[in-house]
């Protein structure tokens, strides 16, 4: 009841004209940014962070949450109409969304995607409201040893899930990010690590310019590399979904919502993984498997429910552990810190109303996303027809200005350009960006906690293994690493075969 009261108060606090206007324009802008291939949710949130620098903290954060939710949903438009995901989170949407558009059912696909996104966001929001206070209390058990192991586990699992074909490259990307975080003055002695005498480098690498470069400039290079863009010619038919389409797949909706939220909670693993896992699970348990890949309403619903449920899920570890659940959540974390909000294990003690306020923000953003998504279908189709050669220089200017605006340093523009080139090169070599970004965020946490833990333990390595939380995190990390090896897969298959065989014998 106390939680509901706080949520009610938070909602009432946001029912002001200036905040509601911010909700509408930032969600609308998020939908446009999400639907334009080459502009990602991370880039949108990062650029908007710099624009909202002078706003009051709550107004700024609600704007960013709206941009985040709008962008993740917005990518479904280009996925359905162009077969090009607007953001990586919408790649799974292409599989069934585009075939539906080719069948002349683009409007229906957009309606399903919008409804799925809305329901996914609502499910995620409910988990955010119920689970965050509990996780916040558990996070107080995390001391230096546990936080060190949590940082390592985050890098390993993020690398594993974002580079399924080659997790080794995901782990390398994570350790590169951790090393990048070491650049600059360290906390204990203020020694400027890896600065090579430069005053600017000794200030460290700012997260926002690095992310704008890695997700912004790198995307611009990738988009401009390809000369041809497919034009949209499809007619938009009925948009509002039939109630039957939603009630028939209620199990898929709930499963995708919960799976998406849980994946959001895992550090660094983002909406694209949530969408694919939700899609895959829906296909495995569907009675209409043959429709998947050919215009399955259930498949489209699963993908969009999963990816939008991931958004509130990714915010949960931001609030409770100051660890981002996804790349846009990493930028959101940076924005909270800029605006004087300190998420982390102490949030339930120092600022318990902030959690309710974030739940209210997600609720308002979700409603705005649904209303705008359903009402602006035909006008937004025109946006997709803007030529890339005219759009990308504008985007680059925003990347440049956004990087400069935080600390008014030309150095940050250089960081943005460098990370753009580095990010593009990493993409070409199949090194995922998400673990690198997570590494940059977790680097300081790992550094401070490892050094503190080493001093407390006096160099005794056994102290790293003597709490239940540490042992659980170590076991999970080892499991994630070992599970990708061939001998584990063979052993697992043999064990599963033996168990199934045993049950069959008992049944007969």
């Amino acid at each position, binding site marked *: 009841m106390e939680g509901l009261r706080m949520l009610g108060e938070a909602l009432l606090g946001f029912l002001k004209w200036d905040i509601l206007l911010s909700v509408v324009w930032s969600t609308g802008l998020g939908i446009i940014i999400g639907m334009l291939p080459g502009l990602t949710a991370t880039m949108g949130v990062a650029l908007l962070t710099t624009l909202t620098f002078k706003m009051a903290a709550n107004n700024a954060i609600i704007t960013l949450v709206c941009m985040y939710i709008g962008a993740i949903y917005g990518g479904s438009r280009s996925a359905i109409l162009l077969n090009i995901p607007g953001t990586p989170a919408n790649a799974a949407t292409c599989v069934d969304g585009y075939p539906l558009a080719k069948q002349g059912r683009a409007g229906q696909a957009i309606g399903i995607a919008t409804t799925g996104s809305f329901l996914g966001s609502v499910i995620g929001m409910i988990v955010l409201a119920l689970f965050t206070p509990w996780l916040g209390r558990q996070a107080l058990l995390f001391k230096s040893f546990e936080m060190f192991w949590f940082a390592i586990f985050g890098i390993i699992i993020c690398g594993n899930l974002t580079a399924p074909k080659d997790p080794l490259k995901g782990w390398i990307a994570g*350790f590169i990010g951790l090393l990048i975080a070491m650049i600059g003055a360290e906390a204990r*002695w203020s*020694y400027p690590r890896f600065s090579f005498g430069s005053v600017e480098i000794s200030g460290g690498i700012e997260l926002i310019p690095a992310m704008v470069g890695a997700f912004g400039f790198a995307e611009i290079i990738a988009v401009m590399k390809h000369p041809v863009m497919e034009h949209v010619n499809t007619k938009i038919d009925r948009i509002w979904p039939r109630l039957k389409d939603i009630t028939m797949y209620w199990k898929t909706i709930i499963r995708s919502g919960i799976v998406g939220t849980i994946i959001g909670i895992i550090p660094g693993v983002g909406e694209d993984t949530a969408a694919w896992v939700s899609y895959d699970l829906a296909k495995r348990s569907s009675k209409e498997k043959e429709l998947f890949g050919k215009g399955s309403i259930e498949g489209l619903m699963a993908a969009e429910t999963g990816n939008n449920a991931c958004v509130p899920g990714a915010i949960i570890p931001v609030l409770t552990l100051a660890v981002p659940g996804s790349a846009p959540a990493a930028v959101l974390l940076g924005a909270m810190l800029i605006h004087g909000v300190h998420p982390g294990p102490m949030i339930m003690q120092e600022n318990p109303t902030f959690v309710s306020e974030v739940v209210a923000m997600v609720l308002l953003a979700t409603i705005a996303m649904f209303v705008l998504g359903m009402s602006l279908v035909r006008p937004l189709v025109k946006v997709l027809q803007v030529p890339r*050669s005219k759009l*990308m220089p504008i985007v*680059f200017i925003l990347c440049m200005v956004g990087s400069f605006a935080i600390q008014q340093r030309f150095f940050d523009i250089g960081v943005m*350009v460098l990370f753009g080139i580095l990010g593009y090169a990493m993409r070409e070599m199949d090194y995922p960006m998400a673990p690198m970004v997570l590494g940059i965020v977790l680097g300081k946490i790992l550094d401070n906690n490892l*050094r503190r833990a080493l001093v407390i333990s006096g160099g005794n390595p056994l102290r790293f293994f003597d709490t239940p939380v540490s042992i659980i995190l170590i076991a999970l990390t080892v499991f994630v690493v070992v599970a990708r090896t061939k001998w584990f897969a063979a052993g697992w298959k043999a064990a599963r075969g033996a168990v199934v065989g045993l049950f069959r014998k008992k049944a007969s």
Partner: protein
Amino acid sequence: MKESNMPRADFITSMILIVVGVAAVWNSLEMPRYENQGGNFLDSPGIVPALLGIMLVALSLVVFIRSIVRKGYKLGWNTASLSAVVKDTMTVRMLVTIAFGVVYGLFLMRWLHFIAATLIFVFVFIVVFEYDIKKPLAAQWKVPVFAIVISTATTAGVYLAFTKLFLVNLP
């Protein structure tokens, strides 16, 4: 990148990463330990970067060995193959985009006012990517005209939005 080229790419990138990792460890070992100021060696600035550098070297070594097993050391570089890569349209577009970003971000923004730098950048970017050298200039008069309109509108819009609305100083 094509799957068939990945072992060669891994061969080169893993070597670069090994060098970066070794350099990180080397630099970390040279960092002060502050033991004469009451500091603990385990708390010294270089300990965590050194450990991270070692992990990076170890993981990159695995990729390096794997690339050798997959015959990635056979780079197959010759004049013809390198010429084909450089002349490929997508490679040219990629390099031109990077060049635009570097010139605008690192040089024009430092030498010129934001308005002048941005006008030039947007105009030249649109013209370079939309102008078709195979078609006559007269048939493409719309390209520079639209480029001027868009660069002016963009520069004015961004300048006014950031300086007047969001109160951000621009260079």
